[in-house]
């Protein structure tokens, strides 16, 4: 199982490094959204529930961009068939995809959280970071698990671009 997950994870990250289809889009979306909030609210500082809400909603919507594309290469290039023909545990694909999404989320947050701090957070990032780390890590684990499941269910449907986000939102709620 570990060998299979390793092979799948390596393949996923290589494909993303070559195409840059998910992580740059997710990061750009998050940063742009913070810029929009910055000007729309006409405030340099947000606090409490409002700050948490802006951060989580933005990260969740950015994650959906990655979730939507998580299985696309496999569906379009015969990756599922290639995997199904191998004598390996099917669960390995779900685990590898969840780890891939987790990696995407971590990279997203490395870009998005400093941008959030710069544009909308009162205290400096250094002050806020200790309090953010644990919720972000737990949130990432949840989004990665639910997002992978949703992406796997949605990828074979014609309305996957709609179904994926709706189901991911419902799951996150």
């Amino acid at each position: 199982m570990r060998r299979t997950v390793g092979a799948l994870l390596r393949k996923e990250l290589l494909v993303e490094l070559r195409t840059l289809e998910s992580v740059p889009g997710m990061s750009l979306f998050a940063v742009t959204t913070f810029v929009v909030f910055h000007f729309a609210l006409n405030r340099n500082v947000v606090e409490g529930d409002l700050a948490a809400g802006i951060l989580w909603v933005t990260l969740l919507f950015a994650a959906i961009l990655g979730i939507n594309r998580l299985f696309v290469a496999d569906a379009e290039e015969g990756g599922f068939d290639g995997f199904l023909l191998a004598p390996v545990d099917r669960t390995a694909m779900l685990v590898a995809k969840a780890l891939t999404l987790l990696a995407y989320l971590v990279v997203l947050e490395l870009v998005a959280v400093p941008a959030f701090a710069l544009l909308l957070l009162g205290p400096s990032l250094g002050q806020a970071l200790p309090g953010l780390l644990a919720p972000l890590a737990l949130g990432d684990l949840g989004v990665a698990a639910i997002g992978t499941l949703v992406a796997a269910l949605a990828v074979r449907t014609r309305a996957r671009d709609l179904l994926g986000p709706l189901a991911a939102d419902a799951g996150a709620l």
Partner: protein
Amino acid sequence: MPAVEVERLARRYGEREALSEVSLSLQEGQTLVVFGPNGAGKTTLLRVLATLLRPHGGSVRVLGARLPDEAWAVRGRLGLLGHEPLLYRELTAYENLRYHARLHDVGDQRVHELLELVRMDGRSREPLRTLSRGMVQRVAVARTVLHAPELLLLDEPHANLDPAAVELVAPLIGSASGRTRVICSHDPSGGLAEADVVLGLRGGRATLLRRAAEVDRAEIAELYR
């Protein structure tokens, strides 16, 4: 025991019957060539035998395993070369083969050996999207035989290959490979030359099933009229 044994196989896509009442038997080491016009059910038959589609009726045994219940026992023992190469366009030939080698628990040595055999060792570090269709097909052939499968399921295996490449892959997927093979073909001459048994499909039904020596080209041509 036959390598492939199919009795009254049925497979539907929604209301449409893709295969109906198809029966055949193929001994180990033999080659079955399947002829039939587009939409006759050839690819569906291959995908059922490959465990990628469940049969909706009848019984299917592949390498002694009853499908779909014992599909796990046959995966890894068959190689499928279909219309899609089952390779990632953004990865190189080497990366694709190494990925499949890991899934099948095959060492890197075999990957290098196959890249040399299909003469792709010189272009093995380039993404597949930059290669010609013929080159991608050669890599797909290497992927198909990477794990030394007992049964080869080949859907128009020479598509996109030039004559030199056809000769190149012959030791891997041709009769010289010594493997049991099921081949879908539209080439009556080439197909008959390879076949021990011929199956003709039309509208999902078997209209011809005989030893190749007893079939002439006119009967194959009739399938397409």
